């Protein structure tokens, strides 16, 4: 009788998904926090953000990632944190998708300077996977 969704909503599954996506976000956040100027350039590369907001995004986004990731790992307000992560993952995936579609070739900057992978199909699949994990993490009760 159990649907796939019910199985995924099992507390343990949700918890594990939360810790996994939380860890990814904490790592991604920390990698970018120290070098906002580098990340600002990478934000610019996506050509999605209005120029005037690029610096602001570069300063704030890594911290939002860190906070949401930490909350997910700790299990504090994890459902809200999971929604933030899921929403961000969707935005990132769209960003990479549109960049790849436009033929732009640049480092995604997803994990700051530590990650030199360029935007492309592989990154797109990775992100789709992470988006699903993040969505699973939102199935929790709190």
């Amino acid at each position, binding site marked *: 009788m159990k649907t796939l969704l019910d199985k995924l909503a099992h507390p343990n599954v949700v918890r594990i998904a939360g810790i996994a996506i939380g860890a990814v976000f904490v790592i991604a956040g920390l990698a970018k926090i120290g070098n906002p100027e580098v990340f600002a350039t990478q934000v610019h590369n996506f*050509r999605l953000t209005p120029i005037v907001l*690029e*610096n602001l995004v570069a300063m704030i986004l890594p911290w939002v990632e*860190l906070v*949401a990731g930490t909350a997910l790992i700790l299990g504090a*307000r994890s459902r809200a944190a999971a929604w*933030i992560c899921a929403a961000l993952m969707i935005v990132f995936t769209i960003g990479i998708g549109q960049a790849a579609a436009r033929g732009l070739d640049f480092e995604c900057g997803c994990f700051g300077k530590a990650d030199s992978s360029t935007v492309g199909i592989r990154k797109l699949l990775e992100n789709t996977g992470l988006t699903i994990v993040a969505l699973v993490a939102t199935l929790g009760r709190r």
Partner: protein
Amino acid sequence: MTTTKPTSLTTDIALLLSIGVVLGLAYNALGLREGNGWGIAWKGVDRVEELKKAPMIGAVQSSASTFVSDDPLAVPAMAETALPEIPDYGRPVQINIEAVKQLYDASAVVLVDAREAWEYDEGHIPGSISLPYEEAITDPVRLEALDTGGRPIVTYCGGGSCEVSLSLAQELIYAGHPRIAVYMGGFPEWITAGYPVEAGEKR
């Protein structure tokens, strides 16, 4: 956990986002320290200030008057070497009107007009290429494809507080054109000096 009163999801989301925003702003209160050329200088690098610290390329004083030679071929040879040199400085340098004019007269420079297309159409430095900053930033391929024929680039815009020439210069450097100077005096100063002007949509 079951004892805690369930909080609203939206409240929690707002709370987490606020914490992130506050931490981010607090951490960056000192601004983007250096190296960033993007966006507004929000507590960050003032690109105009940075440019003012860069070398100013001035006109080369003609040494022809002091150069005495019976060989008539020596003079054109001197004239050729006596052009202002725009170096690969890693970021845009400044250039003054006299130096721009020397390079312009010798066709030794690619002039790029960073103003909007209609401003260019109304009047521009003859031979300059229209590359409106707002269009250029959405199309990096156009910047990379700019054919300079090995010549340095001088960007200009409307003078005064106009910064698009500087922003465009930065973009051009990122697009792989190393030798860039910004002519901050811009088109108004060029007109005032009585130098040639051209109108129309020739790009």
